[in-house]
């Protein structure tokens, strides 16, 4: 009886160790970059109209806070920028890191652009912090740090994924198959690291720089709803009409409560 019990233990221990040694069946495999290039096709047309504009902030934006990175000595050593990026305010109250895109009015489908967009983890920050991507376009996530990161995307319409990059220089290619504004990224190792990507079925989007400007070019003439999204201040929309070959200017102003 006792001998049988001991052998049962040995069996359980072997099963445990064997399962621990197996490699993880990871999340979905890397997708293949599509062959077709950007620019009108399958019904979606490119035009020569443009919507340009500026995003500003009214009121005083909260001061950037210094991120304490002392949970990882590598971050502490290599970080060149340790301020939070929630509010990037330039001259004349220009507001950066605002994602501006055509929300409504685009007809037809647009194949994903050939260019690969890169999300770089460098200095324990995501670069860029706010950016856009077309449905099916390849996003390459790079770990440029000499420490480990995990890439944890928490979309709602697309599939969630969480993948580790323990070695400097590792890359990971991903695509999103559904439009979604915005898909958050976070690193659970370094809780301060976060980023957002706007995934759209067309190429008419931009992110404002520190000067607050944006440029939605190559639009076909038409009536559009343009939305501006800020991670702390929410969204604003405007109706915009742009004629053939014309440039229309719009401006957004976010109020700090």
């Amino acid at each position: 009886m006792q001998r049988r019990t001991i052998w049962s233990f040995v069996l359980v221990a072997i099963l445990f160790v064997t399962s621990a040694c197996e490699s993880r069946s990871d999340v979905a495999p890397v997708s293949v970059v599509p062959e077709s290039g950007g620019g009108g096709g399958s019904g979606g047309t490119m035009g020569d109209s443009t919507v340009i504009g500026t995003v500003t902030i009214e009121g005083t934006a909260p001061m950037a806070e210094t991120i304490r990175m002392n949970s990882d000595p590598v971050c502490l050593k290599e970080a060149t920028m340790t301020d939070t990026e929630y509010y990037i305010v330039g001259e004349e109250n220009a507001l950066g890191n605002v994602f501006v895109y055509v929300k409504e009015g685009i007809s037809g489908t647009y194949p994903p652009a050939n260019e690969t967009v890169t999300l770089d983890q460098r200095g324990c920050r995501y670069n860029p912090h706010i950016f856009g991507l077309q449905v099916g376009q390849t996003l390459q996530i790079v770990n440029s740090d000499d420490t480990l990161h995990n890439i944890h995307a928490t979309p709602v319409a697309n599939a969630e994924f969480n993948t580790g990059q323990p070695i400097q220089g590792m890359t990971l290619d991903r695509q999103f198959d559904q439009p979604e504004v915005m898909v958050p990224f976070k690193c659970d190792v370094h809780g301060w690291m976060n980023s957002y990507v706007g995934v759209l079925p067309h190429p008419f989007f931009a992110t404002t720089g520190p000067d607050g400007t944006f440029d939605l070019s190559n639009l076909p003439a038409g009536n559009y709803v343009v939305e501006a999204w800020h991670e702390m201040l929410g969204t604003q929309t405007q109706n915009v009409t742009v004629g053939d070959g014309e440039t229309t200017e719009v401006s957004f102003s976010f109020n700090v409560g």
Partner: protein
Amino acid sequence: MHWLHHYIKLLTVASLVLITAGGLVTSTDSGLAVPDWPNTYGYFMFSFPLSKMVGGVLYEHGHRLIASIVGMLTIGLVVWLSRTEPRTWVRRLGWIALAAVITQGTLGGLTVLYFLPPPISISHAGLAQLFFVLVVSLTVFTSPGWRAQYSRPHPLNDRTLSRLTLLMPFVIYCQILIGATMRHTDAGLAIPEFPLPFGLLVPPVWTTGITFNFAHRIGALVVTVLILTTMAHVLYHHRSVRTLARPALLLGALVCLQFSLGALTVLSEKHVVINTAHVAVGATVLVTAVVLALRVHRISFRDVDIHDRQPETCVESVPTDSEAQA
């Protein structure tokens, strides 16, 4: 038998450390800092470099390592019980503990691979408490005091105490499950004020988070009143029985501490240390209530002991009162 008892005490301590480490993982939001399982960033768990244990990895991988130690100690426990324990039901409890710890490890892995779905995470938290209760119960069952029936060969004849102590662990466990649900649905600050929700006795609006949060607060009141009532009852009627008075007093002190930690968790906006201590003390409250219940109902196990008794296990000398405290 003496060393087995000390071994299980070691497992008890390790289990509490493990629960605390688990609380630290959730309090620091590090549950997904290691995306793979059972490996860690592709490394075999025990060969993962210490230099890479940074940020959230320190908490999550640390939790896994402690869990492995507890798992191995539990395997050792079952082997030890199988070889030396004459009581069949105690040996069976050892096997149940092993099944629980294996299931617990699997739940922990699944919750990582499926991005912390609340049902799996809550089950992981709930089973952790049951495992802890099992281990503490085994500590009690192998103690010299238990075998000497705490020098009380006759029933207490106190039906009120009997009912209170049977009810208490159940109510505390329900309260812990509500707390785990709140924690794993990120509803800890759904009501950001303390003591009154939004300045009122009852929340003016109801969301899922507010409901769990409010239920946990009501549960805290129920548990506190129940424990303090039990403590008062023990101290009034059985003050001289130290094997009952001591855990009752400890329980009263622990529930006051736990109530304060709950309030401070809200007021500090879930400070990591306070939030983690709330988990650890909650588990300690539960097992202290279980110890008290077992001591009160010791006589009910008599028949089981007699049924299982084998010649070599028989009667030892009745320990002194201080021995019976063990």
